C-alpha cells in the first residue's frame, strides 16, 4: 500500500505541477465541471476573409487536485450526460486531457470515479488509491517516493465511514437511493401539492446561482460574437440557467410580444426539479444530484432542496398510504 504523509503533501503538489498544469480545486466554489465545460468557451471561429472555419483546439494535459468524492461522482455522471445522445467534443477534448485526483476526508469508502484518490487514514496519512489505468500510468511517470506499507495493514488503519449530520445532506442522500420514488413524488407534487411550488416561487430570486454551482447542471446557450473589424466571427457556448426568465422565451411575430414556455418563477423552478428528479431519472435511471449541498449553501434566498424534497416526500407518502 502506497502512503503519502500529510506533511509531504506540498512536495507532492510541487511535483504534480511539474508534470502538467495543476489546478488545486480544494477551496473552489464552482464545481470541477468548469474545467471541461467552462462558463464561456469559443467553440468555432470563422474567418470571413479566408472563409475558413477553425474549431477549438484540445488543451494540454492538466491535473485537477483535491476533488471531493461527491464531485468525482458528479464528473462520472456528467461524462454519461455528455455522451448522450451524441458525443460532445468540446467536453471530451478537455476531459480526455485531465487527470483527476480525488481527496477524501473522513467520509466514504467507495471510489465513484477519478484516476487517483488520496484516502485519509488515521495518523495524518493518505492511502494512494489508483483507480484507473490512466492514473496508474501517471503515477509511474511521476515517480514519487511514497512510503510503502506492507499489505494487510490498511484495514486496521482506515477511518470509519461516517458523515456528520450538519455538513452533508444526509436525508437527501437517503432519498436518492430510491430515485424512482423520488421521481413519482416530484411528478405528483405539481398537481398534488402545488402550495409548495407557489411558496418557492415567492422565494426564488431567479438568479441562477443554484445551477451554476451545481456540479451536474449543464444547460447552455449559444451566442455569436464578432471582433471589431467584423472579419472574425466566434460562436460561444455559455452556461445558462433554466431558472432565468429568458430561458424558454422565443421571438414573437411582428406585433406579437415574445412568448415564454415557462412563464413564471413557479414553472421555472419546478422545471429545475423536474429535470433533476423526473426527466433525469427517465433518461439515466438516477436523479441528477449528488447531494454536494452547494445549491443550498449559495442560494441567496436560502432555499434548501433537501427540505423541499423531504416535505414533498412526506406529503406524498401520507397520501399514497
Amino acid at each position, binding site marked *: 500500500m502506497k502512503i503519502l504523509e500529510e506533511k509531504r503533501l506540498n512536495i507532492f503538489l510541487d511535483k504534480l505541477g511539474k508534470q502538467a498544469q495543476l489546478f488545486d480545486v480544494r477551496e473552489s466554489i464552482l464545481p470541477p465541471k468548469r474545467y471541461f465545460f467552462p462558463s464561456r468557451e469559443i467553440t468555432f471561429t470563422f474567418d470571413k476573409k479566408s472563409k475558413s472555419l477553425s474549431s477549438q483546439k484540445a488543451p494540454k494535459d492538466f491535473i485537477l487536485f483535491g476533488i471531493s468524492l461527491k464531485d468525482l461522482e458528479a464528473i462520472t455522471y456528467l461524462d454519461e*450526460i455528455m455522451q448522450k445522445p451524441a458525443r460532445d467534443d468540446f467536453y471530451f477534448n478537455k476531459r480526455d486531457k485531465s487527470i483527476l485526483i480525488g481527496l477524501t476526508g473522513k467520509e466514504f469508502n467507495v471510489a465513484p470515479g477519478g484516476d487517483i484518490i488520496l484516502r485519509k487514514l488515521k495518523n495524518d496519512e493518505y492511502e494512494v488509491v489508483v483507480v484507473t489505468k490512466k492514473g496508474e500510468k501517471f503515477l509511474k511517470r511521476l515517480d514519487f517516493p511514497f512510503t510503502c506499507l506492507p499489505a494487510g495493514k490498511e484495514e486496521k488503519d482506515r477511518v470509519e465511514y461516517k458523515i456528520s449530520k450538519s455538513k452533508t445532506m444526509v436525508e437527501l442522500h437517503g432519498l436518492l437511493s430510491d430515485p424512482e420514488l423520488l421521481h413519482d413524488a416530484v411528478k405528483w407534487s405539481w*398537481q398534488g401539492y402545488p402550495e409548495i411550488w407557489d411558496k418557492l416561487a415567492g422565494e426564488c430570486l431567479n438568479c441562477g446561482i443554484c445551477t451554476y454551482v451545481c456540479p451536474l447542471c*449543464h444547460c*447552455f*446557450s*449559444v451566442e455569436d460574437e464578432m471582433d471589431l473589424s467584423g472579419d472574425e*466571427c466566434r460562436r460561444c457556448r455559455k452556461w445558462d440557467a433554466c431558472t432565468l426568465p429568458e430561458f424558454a*422565451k422565443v421571438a414573437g411575430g411582428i406585433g406579437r410580444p415574445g412568448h415564454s*414556455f415557462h412563464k413564471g418563477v413557479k414553472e421555472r423552478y419546478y422545471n429545475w426539479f423536474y429535470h433533476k428528479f423526473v*426527466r433525469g431519472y427517465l433518461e439515466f435511471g438516477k436523479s441528477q444530484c449528488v447531494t454536494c449541498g452547494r445549491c443550498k449553501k449559495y442560494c441567496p434566498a436560502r432555499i434548501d432542496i433537501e427540505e423541499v424534497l423531504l416535505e414533498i416526500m412526506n406529503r406524498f407518502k401520507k397520501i399514497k398510504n
Partner: protein
Amino acid sequence: MQNIYEPIPVKIQKIEIYSGDVKLFRMAKLDGSPFPLNQNGLVFVPGQFVLAGLWGYGESPFGPASHPNDSSCIEVVVRKVGQVTSALHSLEEGDELTLRGPYGNGYPIDFFREKDVILITGGCGIPPIASLVEYIISNRSDFGEVNLLYGATTPEDLLMKERMNEWKRRINVTLTVDKPACNWDGNTGFVTDCLEHLKINSANTVVAMCGPGPMVDAIENLLNPMGIPDRRIFVSMERKMQCGVGRCQHCVCGDKYVCVDGPVFNLDEIDKAWDK
C-alpha cells in the same frame, strides 16, 4: 468524425419574396454535391427541422418546405422576427450560410399510408406541411382522401400560392382568411369553420397540424367529438432551440425534448406534459 455542432456551409441559390416579412431561401451545398439521404431515401422527413445560421449572428430552427426527395437543395421559409431571421433577410442570392441537421422526428409518413389525411395549418406554419404535401403528391396512390386547410389573416398572408395551384389538382385545398380583400374568392373565417364542413371517415383519418397553439387547441376540441382521437392528431411543437441535439435543455416539454423526440408529437404524448 464530424463535431455534432459543426455546421456545413451552403449557398443561397434563390430567394423568393413572399411578403414584407417572409422570404423563401433555396440553399445548395457549396460544392454542388447532393444532400445525403436517410433510410427512407429522403433528404429529411417532412416535419423535421434544420438549424440555419449565419456566422456572427447565430442559428435558428426552420422546418424545410422543399420536396423531401429533392437532394439538390433545401428550402426554408423565414419570417423576420429577431436577430437571426433579420440577418437572413439581409442576404442576397449567392451569399453563404450554414446548415445543421436535419434533426428530430417528422410526421410519421408510414403511419399515414392508406389513410385519409387532413392537413391543417395557419399563418407561418405552412413550410413543413408544404413538404408533406409534396411527398404525398409524389406517392399519391399510397394515401386516401387528402384535405389541406390553410388559414391566414389576409389573402396576402397566404404563402406559396403558386405551389398551391399545382396541389389543387391532386388534393383538396381549402383556403380561408379572416379579412377578405375585394378580389378574394376563397373562404372567410377560421380554419375551424372549414373543418366543421368536411365530410370525413373518422375511423381511418389522420391529422397533421402546424400552427399557433390556440389554433391547435381549438382544432383538438373539434376533432375529438368527430371521432378522431388525440393519438391520430400530429402537431409540430414550438420551443426555444439552441443545441438541437438534446443537451442544452432549452426545448424541453415535460419528459420530452422537442429537438430530439419531436418537433412532431401526437397530442396524446403531449397532453400528459405538465408544461404543455
